């Protein structure tokens, strides 16, 4: 994973609440066995509407998406994070996110930033005016120039800032896992014995 520190640029706005991952990438595009090729199908059904906000030319190059609360709820499909990232988004700002979606984004270096409703409203209303997300400083600089801070899980932050591979990090703790399995692991279910 590439290290992420600052994402800045125009903001695209999608002023809808509880956008589910079925909308972000519909099921007919989940048949691919690769990690790529999803970007062109982002918001596939909504894109059929010429009035859909993401058609606006001034949003075309936006690396930041500002949107309504509970973004990415529903299905666990990581394809949603892949599709957003492939479409050029590097940070998503909303009041809140679906839990699994947020984790999926963090595994791919796609920032999810939760801000108070009023700050998200400012971003949406002033889009495409540019903003900047600084992961190191944990701040978002709004188009007005006002900087607001945000919370991020410290271990997730560390991993993103360095672009560390999660699995490699856990493999360094192999001795701990070995010890757990030797001392505390509960028997079964051994599915190979079925």
């Amino acid at each position, binding site marked *: 994973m590439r290290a992420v520190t600052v994402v800045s640029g125009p903001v695209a706005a999608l002023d809808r609440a509880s956008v589910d991952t079925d909308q972000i990438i519909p099921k007919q595009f989940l048949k691919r066995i690769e990690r790529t090729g999803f970007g062109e199908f982002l918001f596939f059904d909504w894109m059929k509407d010429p009035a859909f906000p993401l058609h606006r030319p001034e949003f075309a190059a936006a690396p930041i998406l500002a949107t309504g609360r509970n973004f990415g709820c529903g299905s666990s499909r990581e394809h949603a994070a892949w599709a957003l990232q492939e479409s050029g988004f590097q940070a998503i700002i909303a009041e809140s996110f679906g*839990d699994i979606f947020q984790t*999926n984004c963090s595994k791919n270096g796609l920032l999810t930033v939760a801000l108070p409703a009023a700050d998200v409203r400012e971003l949406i209303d002033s889009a495409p005016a540019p903003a900047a997300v600084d992961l190191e400083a944990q701040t978002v600089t709004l188009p007005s120039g006002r900087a607001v801070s945000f919370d991020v899980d410290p271990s997730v932050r560390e991993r993103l800032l360095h672009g560390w591979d999660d699995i490699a990090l856990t493999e360094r703790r192999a001795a701990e896992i070995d010890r757990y399995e030797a001392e505390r692991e*509960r028997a079964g*279910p051994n599915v190979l014995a079925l």
Partner: protein
Amino acid sequence: MLDKVWADHEVGEELLYVDLHLVHEVTSAQAFEGLRLAGRRVRRPDRTLATADHNVPTGPGDPDELSRVQLAALDTNCAEFGVRLYALGHRRQGVVHVIGPELGVTQPGMTIVCGDSHTSTHGAFGALAFGIGTSEVEHVLATQTLPQRRPRTMRISYAGALGAGCTAKDIILGTIGQIGTDGAAGHVIEYAGAAIQGLSMEGRMTIANMSIEAGGRAGMIAPDDTTFAYLEGRPGAPADFDVAVERWRGYPSDPDAVFDREVTVELAGVAPQVSWGTNPSQVAPITGAVPEPGDETDERALAYMGLTAGTPLQEITVDRVFLGSCTNARIEDLRAAAEVVRGRRVSAGVRAMVVPGSTQVKAQAESEGLDAVFRDAGFEWRGAGCSMCLGMNPDILQPGERCASTSNRNFEGRQGAGGRTHLMSPAMAAAAAVTGRLADVRELVA
């Protein structure tokens, strides 16, 4: 209960051990490929179980080329990495959240993950079970652990008794209607109260299954004698069953347990629930009408659903009926629906199908003659899979078609682009099939 299971599985700081990893074709291919590229192996194949469900045909005909490649990739990956696979055609194949419990590999006090948001289903047994993404699937395959921070806890306590004609589905739909689709975000829910304890395991699974629709990280129900009786004798049940039961009795929350949040839901007077919108919190009692929109989200939903505020729900006609999914396709669900259907006919112009949750559920239903009840009434009787719950296979709605569905999501396009989904219980879906409209099942069964 969460604290006890968590403490049991904490390998070290913020690292959780996984007892059972369930795998299916749609969210695993990229994970296996990641292992291959990095030269990693599956750490514990004996704790990993795969099946084909999301993208399998449930009727005659072969899958399309992309689907065939995806299913073949699962075959190849499981063979290469030594993972037990119940592929299409195997007697134990089925929806991943149906087969775990029916094989008895889902047990109290376990940690269970799967690349599917409805993994919360397994929490019905007092397990900590949650959905993960493909990167996490790869992480679990490689290390049998997940970096996790302990979620907050939320207890939903049910007061009062469930009325006639109401089921677990009505409880959970009503609950989501009350707390919203992000009402449990960041929390593990514990469902409590006499009404929950009185449910069968099938009913409990329906409730735990939809925890994710309230935004919950997971949902748990205290294991008790009903749980143990369900598990006894199943192939995956522990050999030293009595010893296991003694340990499992220790998992329920202590009487003085403290939760980060407490919510109470009143069940007395609750009528069967149906959804009218495009998320599972947009529900109403079948005796009611399409509500006035409260915000823009509601307005969008009504426009998408082609509904007008004030229309009595029972005047809404349906084109399709889907009895299936990890929420409601277990044997008890099929029995409840068959009870309504018996001696009646699917309404003219309605296409109705039953998709059993697993090949074993299908066989059990056939041994009870339920397939004949459904077929005689005009239902299609299909093979096991996720089918029209998410419509990856050819089982989809056409644009504008309206469906009474026992599944878990009524999102826009979920069952097919432009399709309109009304969520409800199996008995209510059966009532819709035979009347051709959203109907109050209490008027059909005395």
